[in-house]
């Protein structure tokens, strides 16, 4: 891949990956020598038509469908949906149920951030960190399983509350888990801020200024790493976030390193708030009654998913099935930031930049087609990753 080559056009097709409604993407990178000059996206490989699907299912059935928009952040989807429906029905969820929702949401954030840390490290060629963070992630998976009965898609929510409770034994298990993870997270913080090779791949790479982040409508840790202070948990507290608040974590650097640092600092916040939650769990019922037919109306429900603001719009026509449900997942906002930060960077940086927004890179079936002088040749995602790693050797 010498730089004397004629301008080439790369077609990067990232196969089905982010599971949410339509996130899996196909990217086309225009490349001149090493440098990316343009980027466009094509989504929809796992477009299943769920928004339409909701219109032929009842409000209760949809809870299970919405939970499966995304298997990684399933709880926040179910929670956003349930909160919207509860607003439509004008019911108040009991305090203990709200606290448990927050607890699961924060545990889920830990699992999701650790998962991301591993995958992002893998894209950069740091497989040791990948394996370590996934090993530690099993701690939180065990906790989630012991509390809810399932490792993924916990199904903790019901309309009007939650169906799980925690007891003394679980509380002490959670404490132990948090202590262990906190210690491990300190270690990760050291790795991402001190390791020379790692910094070579992250510092000043994929930078996005505050201004640009605002204009692109970036959300979540990606935006907060550029200094944007949006966080729905603070801006518009839901569940029990008003009683058990979190602090917004931001950074000003706006580069890949900052995105690592912000997510790791968010882990500390999660550990802290989880400890507080289990120590001061309010006592109350777990559910309230909720009608099967929702009164006519429309509501907006927003929650902060691990990847950013998740937006639900629900419209009821007074029957037992919704008239319209709109889901806007956070990754959809963040594609824009990838497409514009990609330009001007080396092709070798693409895997890390893409991973930087945390688009749930969990499949290994991504392909890169390289169109060289009109000869179509194929590069797998693996090849691109290897290319990036070799380049930085």
């Amino acid at each position: 891949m010498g730089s004397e080559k004629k301008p080439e056009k790369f077609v990067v097709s990232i196969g089905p990956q982010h599971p949410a409604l339509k996130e899996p993407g196909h990217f086309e990178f225009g490349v001149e020598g090493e440098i990316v000059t343009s980027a466009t996206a094509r989504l929809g490989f796992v477009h299943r038509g769920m928004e339409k699907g909701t219109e032929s299912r009842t409000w209760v059935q949809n809870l299970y469908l919405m939970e499966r928009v995304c298997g990684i952040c399933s709880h926040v989807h179910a929670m956003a949906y349930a909160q919207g429906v509860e607003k439509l029905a004008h019911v108040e969820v009991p305090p203990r149920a709200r606290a448990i929702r927050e607890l699961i949401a924060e545990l889920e954030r830990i699992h999701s951030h650790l998962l991301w840390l591993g995958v992002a490290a893998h894209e950069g060629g740091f497989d040791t960190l990948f394996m370590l963070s996934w090993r530690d992630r099993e701690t939180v998976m065990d906790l989630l399983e012991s509390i809810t009965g399932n490792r993924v898609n916990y199904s903790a929510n019901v309309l009007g509350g939650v169906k799980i409770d925690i007891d003394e034994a679980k509380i002490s298990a959670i404490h132990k888990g948090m202590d262990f993870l906190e210690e491990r997270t300190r270690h990760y913080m050291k790795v991402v801020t001190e390791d020379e090779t790692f910094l070579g791949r992250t510092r000043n790479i994929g930078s996005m200024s505050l201004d640009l982040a605002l204009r692109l409508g970036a959300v979540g840790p990606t935006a907060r790493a550029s200094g944007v202070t949006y966080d729905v948990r603070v801006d518009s507290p839901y569940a029990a976030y008003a009683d058990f608040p979190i602090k917004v974590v931001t950074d000003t650097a706006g580069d890949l390193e900052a995105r690592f640092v912000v997510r790791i600092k968010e882990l500390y916040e999660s550990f802290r708030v989880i400890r507080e939650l289990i120590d001061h769990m309010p006592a109350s019922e777990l559910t309230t009654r909720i009608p099967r037919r929702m009164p006519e109306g429309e509501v907006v429900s927003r929650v902060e998913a691990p990847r950013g603001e998740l937006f639900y719009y629900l419209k009821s026509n007074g029957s037992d099935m919704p008239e319209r449900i709109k889901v806007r997942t956070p990754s959809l906002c963040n594609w824009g930031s990838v497409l514009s930060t990609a330009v001007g960077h080396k092709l070798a940086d693409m895997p890390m930049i893409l991973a930087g927004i945390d688009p749930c890179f969990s499949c290994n079936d991504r392909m890169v087609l390289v169109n060289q002088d009109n000869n179509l040749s194929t590069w797998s995602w693996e090849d691109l990753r290897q290319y990036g790693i070799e380049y930085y050797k």
Partner: protein
Amino acid sequence: MTSPIEGVMDKVKTWARVNSPWAIHFNSGSCNGCDIEILATLTPRYDVERFGIKLQGSPRHADVLICTGPVTLQARDRLVRIYEQMPEPKFVVAVGSCGISGGVFQGCYGVVGDIGDVIPVNVYVPGCPPRPEAIIYGVVQLLKSLQS
């Protein structure tokens, strides 16, 4: 009639395949729940690599196709293409309720059906998502059936 030498060769091949199957993973529209559990089988807690199971990047090197999710309109052709690119003999493991029946996504307009509707499946692993242990068990069942 197979000659004795071919018989021995076949035995050797089966032995090699059973002891170190290479797999490729394809998501044809899943919610990623199944996918993260498949990935979890590679990480230290479960670590299937110590049994010789390796996840491969290219279908041309794979013996086993591990699929997740219902099949969407856009993923159908890709799924078939990947299946066709795999060398014979090839085996398919469908992971998750979605792969078995379409799961919760049944009836959505973007979904054409389950994996069995599109390519032949050897082993189904039920669950939403199945635990990593279940996925490993499913692969082991496949290998057992190959041995006999």
